[in-house]
């Protein structure tokens, strides 16, 4: 049952959290044209580590004609067409010419959006059927485990993956859970049916570092050596980053002068040093407004940025501060009340955050919710509007596409329907902000990975074979 899933994810396994990591040598994401190249995971002087082996699936060009196209870049084009070829969007508009070999899709009465991006997922790390054997999301053995990488837990045969694809999702950030103060690196993944996580790794995406505030680390470690308090949480983050500062200094010096043996590698500090260098984005599970303020102070103390607060149930209380800090806010539309730090959730949070000038995002943290992020965003948009907060349809769409891409540092590559962007495209049966809309076709980098009306394009995981 749905609550069962939420309950276990949130409460018992402390699955909800933030962070994760992927390193590139520079802070800027590579240009889309370079996206298929191997990422340069240098980790501050170390050579490539666990590189992406992602390959674009070969496909014919596709043109979807006469649809309502929501670009997430400011336009909603009636009677529009979109052409994509070799994994790239070629043209979007009302008069698009298609090459003769293009597959023509009639979009009459249908809608088109960018592929959905979920910045907070535990697919693959908390896989179905949800037994201990698939519970790989929290390395809950000590409160700081910056050394673990979610991709090393990720199971590409998680039967929840095809369900999310059928919901229009093309990219996820798979995160460690929130048991730990610092849970480890995230993995930014193309949601495609392949054999290994390496083939899913989004080329050029930034790793995230999952950090967690509040109740979960306290609950998990309170009786096991701590932290048992919020002040203990803060001391734990600070101690970890103090070590990382020294580590970074040693490595930066050696990278510069190459004098003597290189310093000994330490995986924990390696991740944290990359945060300090700005190469790994902090993805911070944090519910309460006052705790988010503490975390911003922590970030100031050590000179890093918090890319996004996740869950951020009370973000609306400090929307002005978050706008000033440039920290994005990933929220649910209506989750609240399942624990004390979630008591103050309101429907209008995303709208209020956006109105204040901060970057809003709708995330799932849930294998059910990821299948209908469009619905959750619609809920948040309409509640905002009914409260008198202006939200455009394009803005609401950006909450689970373009803004999500920014949170992961891949906004130059995906998140909108613009020429040159990767062809992550969803065709909907109806207005995607309607409860009745269903994804009819999902293209990931131009590859038709799901077609509601064609069983040949409805991937099944190995797990599902031979099951009822």
């Amino acid at each position, binding site marked *: *049952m749905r609550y069962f899933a939420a309950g276990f994810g949130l409460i018992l396994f402390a699955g909800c959290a933030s962070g994760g990591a992927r390193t590139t040598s520079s802070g800027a994401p590579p240009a889309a044209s370079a996206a298929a190249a191997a990422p340069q995971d240098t980790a501050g002087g170390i050579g490539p580590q666990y590189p992406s082996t992602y390959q674009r699936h070969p496909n014919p060009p596709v043109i979807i004609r006469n649809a309502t196209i929501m670009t997430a870049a400011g336009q909603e084009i009636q009677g529009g067409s979109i052409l994509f070829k070799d994994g790239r969007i070629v043209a979007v508009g009302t008069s698009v010419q298609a090459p003769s070999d293009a597959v023509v899709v009639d979009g009459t009465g249908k809608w088109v959006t960018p592929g959905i991006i979920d910045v907070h997922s535990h697919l693959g790390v908390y896989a179905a*059927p949800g037994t201990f054997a698939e519970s790989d999301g929290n390395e809950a053995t000590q409160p700081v485990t910056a050394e673990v990488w979610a991709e090393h837990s990720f199971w590409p045969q998680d039967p929840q993956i095809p369900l999310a694809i059928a919901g229009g999702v093309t990219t996820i950030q798979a995160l460690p859970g929130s048991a730990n103060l610092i849970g480890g690196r995230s993995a930014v993944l193309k949601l495609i049916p392949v054999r290994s996580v390496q083939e899913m790794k989004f080329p050029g995406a930034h790793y995230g570092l999952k950090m967690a505030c509040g109740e979960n680390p306290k609950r998990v470690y309170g009786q096991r050596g701590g932290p048992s308090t919020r002040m203990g949480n803060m001391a734990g983050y600070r101690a970890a980053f103090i070590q990382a500062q020294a580590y970074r200094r040693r490595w930066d010096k050696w990278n510069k002068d190459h004098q003597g043996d290189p310093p000994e590698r330490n995986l924990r500090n390696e991740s944290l040093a990359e945060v300090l260098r700005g190469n790994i984005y902090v993805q911070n599970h944090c519910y309460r407004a006052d705790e988010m303020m503490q975390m911003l102070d922590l970030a100031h103390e050590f000179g890093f940025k918090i890319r996004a607060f996740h869950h951020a149930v009370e973000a609306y*209380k400090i929307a002005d501060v978050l706008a000033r800090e440039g920290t994005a806010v990933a929220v649910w539309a209506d989750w609240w009340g399942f624990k004390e730090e979630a008591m103050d959730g*309101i429907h209008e949070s995303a709208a209020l955050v956006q109105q*204040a000038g901060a970057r809003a995002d709708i995330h799932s943290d849930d294998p059910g919710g990821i*299948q209908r992020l469009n*619905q959750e965003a619609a*809920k948040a948009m*309409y509640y905002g509007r009914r409260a008198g907060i202006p939200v455009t349809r394009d803005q609401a769409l950006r909450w689970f596409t373009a803004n999500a891409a920014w949170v992961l540092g891949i906004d130059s590559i995906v998140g909108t329907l613009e020429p040159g962007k990767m062809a992550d495209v969803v065709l909907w049966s109806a207005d995607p902000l309607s409860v009745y809309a269903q994804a009819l076709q999902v293209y990931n980098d131009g590859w038709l990975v799901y077609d509601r009306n064609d069983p040949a394009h409805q991937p099944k995981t190995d797990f599902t074979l031979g*099951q009822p």
Partner: protein
Amino acid sequence: MIAFLLAQTIAITGGTVYPVSGPKIEHATVLIRDGRIAAVGTNVAVPAGATRVDASGKWVTPGLIDGAGQMGLREIGVVQGTSEYTQRGNDVAAGFNVLEGINPASTLIAVNRMEGVTTTLAVPGSLGVPPSGGLIWGQAALIDLDGATIETMQIKSPAAMVAGLSEAAKDASGGSRAAVAQRLRRVLNDAREYATRRADYRRRQIQDLSASAADLEALQPVLRGDLPLLVVANRRSDIETALRIAKEYKLRLILAGAAEGWMIPGEIAAAGVPVLVEPLDNIPSYDALGIRYENAPLLAKGGVKVALMETATENTRDLRQQAGNAVASGMTWEQALRAVTLTPAEIFGVAGQYGSLEAGKVANVVVWSGDPFEFSTGVEHVFIRGREIPLRSRQTELLERYRTLPPKY
């Protein structure tokens, strides 16, 4: 006995009325008097002095009924002190009735009723998270989401006896599904025997029975077929076990969950057994590998009486999203509306008073800005037993406090 607080006459005029018991009526009036619906139609005279509610361009439906939750029984999920839905340490807790544990002041009530849910079944255990693996969890109560006391909220108590036949029920019965079924039969047999030998029981001239006298006594209405047995079962074989036992003992069965019910709608329909389904439930587990979005539509198509539920109690308001998604997955819109109004009223035995907009029924009425299942639709008015419910909650107060920053404390 349903309690009414006010004697007031209210006329909801001009709306498109969906009585559920019949086809929609354009430009109709719903007249409410003293907590009950006095008249519905296009030729309803509005008495002088009636409070008028203009519903022109709006949709008017019965208040939504959630198939199962823990409203009033659980304030904060992880805070044990606020959980009232379990009698721990008794795996045959048939005598445990949740009613007196309900907190009429729960903040969840205001949050959810202002979104159109007016009635819910408050169940022991948790359909989503079976708490202890017990066999019989206790008695559920049907309540309206208004009232300062449990006496004023109560509609029917008990409304059902709740039991588990899913994976979670195994622990208390030795770890096997067969053992669960056998234990349930033994409890029912003992309850039968107890009923004929109460005096022997008191004199201790009877073999050991599998439950206390209070629990065996509480099972008597179930054995008589007066009180339905609501069984949580998801795997097809578990559903079939429930059907088998219900047939053997001539029980009135309600299935809850029924995730793999779509495989056997014919069997369920032939047994005349209704089901409570959560349409957005589709994550496979070993308890239900065949779980899928199309369950509710396929059951309905197969002739099964289907009501819907939202098991996340704090978001019982998402019942309408559940219903909308059931439509997207193949239910007709009319079936889905019925599945959150008249059908649950029938299942819980209160269709004479609840679930449709008909003269004489309790005035639980919602005025919507449009299709109740759509996100673009807002709730404009909620009436519970004829009282207009203020559209305020702790959450609306938080919104107002923080709408402009910094807040004024």
